[in-house]
């Protein structure tokens, strides 16, 4: 059963695929150029089941596969050997459910640290005595030890030097040269998915905004779409325009923020100042439209809160256009700067084939020649009113990622200005149902500023949310970072890292 989450043709149904055939099915589907949207587990009627979301990049459709595990089974044949992009998904499933992917090349804990009880599998609710027995305890985390004389390790994090989120990078180096980078996340695993199933569904939007709070608008939008998809209640056109405008403003602000970061890592003070002043202006527009700099608590399912009045919309359009032209005028500081280009070019490159293997998304994917963009692939009429193309490069280096971000920021501000200018009314609609439909599933997919963001919501027979899964775009991209810096120098890492600009909390949840 295919559906288009942007258009809402009806409730999303699941295809049941036996677990034994899942690997073959995915191999053929993904081989055809489709994407693995997400892979996760849920509790079914009779034990656990694997859920796989596949995005048809050609038709813009989505299919959800459901593969129940045999009764009391807590292991299955790993998909990763055929499908490298599944490797973190499977590790996450192993952590949260204790379901073991047999034959996984890197089975270590991902989000559940050693500080948690080793027999705690927080999302596994379908526990019989038999499954509890079979589920093995989590092994303590061990870093890969690079062999060889003189290799030493540089631990960076979880308390990082810069003002950024916690994560741990373990560099195995020979002198300045990074021979291997192992990224360990999970420090900010806050049990978000469990919290989402525990709270009132009307309050869920506050929680998803905190999933990765710098992507609040995109998370809230994906959540809103998922809930609307679940209930088959489409959002009003103005509401959708406003949501998209918020996402685009967020995109512009964050990309400009990352340009500040890139300038800082280059040690380029002038650039940093110019971009951070501009970022302040963009956040000012966000404040004007939504009442906060991070556009929180306005995007809710079935409605939009604090719809701004017309004069505000006109003012916001004007300011967005100014910001966009300002960005054009200061971009040469970074992109025509010979010394900066020399630092960025050829640095931390990811080849297209590798990007495809790991299913890179967002600016990092587009810099490596993967043109995938949710806004283009999944039909969204609001985006089709303006002629625009997501920038795509093939070099896959820091410079390509920087250019993608810069160009996306300009496009985003223009798209946002366009959407804001076409909002007609300022009344706050509300079409929220009294209860959620039972045994349903809903999906919301948006292109957040980091890339494809997916929310999946399922209800049980009582109409309660039984499973909520968020797939942050960073989840696909982290491994690429560790490969991009292999063989590079230690001092290049901050720049490479910033060019990917990934979210830790979105990954850890």
């Amino acid at each position, binding site marked *: 059963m295919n559906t288009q989450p942007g258009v809402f043709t009806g409730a999303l149904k699941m295809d049941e695929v036996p677990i034994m055939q899942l690997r073959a099915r995915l191999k053929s589907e993904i081989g055809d150029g489709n994407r693995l949207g997400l892979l996760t587990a849920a509790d079914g009627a009779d034990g656990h089941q694997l859920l796989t979301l596949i995005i048809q990049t050609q038709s813009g459709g989505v299919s959800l596969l459901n593969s129940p595990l045999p009764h009391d089974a807590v292991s299955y044949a790993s998909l990763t050997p055929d499908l490298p992009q599944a490797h973190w998904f499977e590790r996450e499933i192993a952590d949260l459910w204790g379901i073991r992917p047999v034959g996984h090349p890197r089975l270590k804990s991902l989000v559940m640290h050693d500080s948690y009880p080793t027999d705690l599998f927080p999302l596994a609710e379908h526990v019989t005595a038999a499954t509890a027995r079979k589920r093995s305890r989590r092994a303590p985390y061990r870093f890969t030890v690079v062999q060889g004389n003189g290799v030493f390790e540089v631990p960076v994090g979880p308390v990082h030097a810069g003002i950024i989120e916690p994560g741990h990078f373990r560099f195995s180096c020979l002198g300045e040269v990074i021979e291997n980078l192992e990224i360990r996340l999970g420090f900010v695993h806050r049990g978000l998915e469990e919290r989402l199933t525990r709270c009132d569904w009307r309050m869920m939007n506050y929680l998803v905004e905190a999933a990765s709070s710098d992507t609040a608008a995109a998370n809230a939008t994906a959540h809103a779409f998922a809930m609307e998809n679940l209930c088959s209640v489409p959002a009003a056109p103005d509401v959708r325009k406003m949501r998209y405008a918020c996402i685009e403003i967020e995109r512009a602000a964050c990309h400009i923020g990352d340009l500040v970061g890139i300038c800082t890592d280059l040690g380029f003070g002038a650039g940093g100042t110019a971009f951070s002043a501009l970022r302040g202006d963009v956040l000012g527009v966000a404040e004007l439209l939504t009442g906060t700099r991070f556009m929180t608590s306005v995007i809710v399912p079935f409605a939009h809160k604090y719809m701004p009045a017309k004069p505000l919309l006109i003012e916001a359009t004007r300011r967005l256009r100014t910001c966009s032209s300002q960005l054009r005028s200061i971009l040469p500081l970074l992109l*025509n700067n010979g010394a900066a280009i020399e630092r960025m070019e050829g640095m931390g490159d990811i080849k297209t084939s590798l990007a495809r293997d790991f299913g890179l998304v967002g600016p990092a994917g587009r810099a490596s020649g993967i043109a995938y963009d949710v806004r283009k692939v999944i039909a969204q009429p609001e985006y089709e009113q303006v002629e625009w193309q997501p920038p795509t490069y093939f070099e896959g280096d820091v410079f390509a990622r920087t250019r993608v971000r810069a160009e996306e920021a300009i496009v985003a501000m223009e798209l946002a200005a366009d959407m804001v200018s076409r909002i007609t009314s300022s009344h706050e609609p509300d079409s929220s149902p009294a209860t959620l439909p039972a045994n349903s599933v809903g999906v919301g997919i948006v292109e957040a500023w980091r890339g494809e963001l997916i929310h999946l919501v399922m209800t049980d027979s009582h109409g309660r949310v039984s499973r909520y899964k968020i797939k942050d775009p960073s989840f696909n991209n982290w491994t690429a970072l560790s490969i991009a810096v292999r063989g590079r120098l230690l001092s290049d890492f901050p720049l490479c890292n910033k060019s990917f600009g990934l979210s830790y909390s979105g990954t850890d949840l």
Partner: protein
Amino acid sequence: MLPSLLNYLKSPRCTADEIFPDLSAANRGLPAITSAPCTHGEGCTLCADGCPTKAIELPTDEKPEVALDLGKCVGCGHCMRVCPTKTIVTSRSTRTAVKRREDLVLRAGRPTLNVDAAHSPFKQSVVVRYVSTGDNATDLEVAACTNPIFDASRFGIHFTASPRFADVLLVAGPAPLAMQEPLCQTLHAMGQPRVIIAVGAQAISGGMFCGGYANANGVSSVLQPDVWVPGNPPHPWMILHGLLLAMGHPLALHT
């Protein structure tokens, strides 16, 4: 590149001159409680019903006034919007940091600021070690404090990589289990005298995460913060207010 650089050099200074200005009129701000009588007695529970973090304590017989815990408030604006009696209103002040946790609980007539010009060794100079524990919007706002607009450096505030250099431990995020040990290690790596600041509702109370298996209930389960900065995320001015309050800086003290 050169014309852009020249343009840049010609551009005016971006640092905001006014210290702790009120938030812009468009901003939703944080709630404040007025002395206007609450109509709870007549069965109004509008504010508490829509509060995602149960931050509002409705009047009871023992405590006849409505109380709002800013430490839990995620700033959704619901209560200020629905309150029929204007007991809960919007405050756009950016001087929101307090030195005692209980001062974050707003009650009618209680001042939001406990002014305390104690002797501080950091009046003119302070170095901050920032630890994020899962609230990256606050990360961005803390980083914004150092940008040319807010320019923390003019107050003698510097951010550092090494906790050995630091006087202030600035913590954001709900401090889930996996971050508690690193957080303690960071604190222990700092010499005396030192100050701990919890910044953001998530750091103060865990926000929406409170109560889960990950123990993401805010930093006070691990450390004893000296200064509390409400907001979700707090505006850079609010964070600066917290920092200046920790420094004992005169700018933070007068209201």
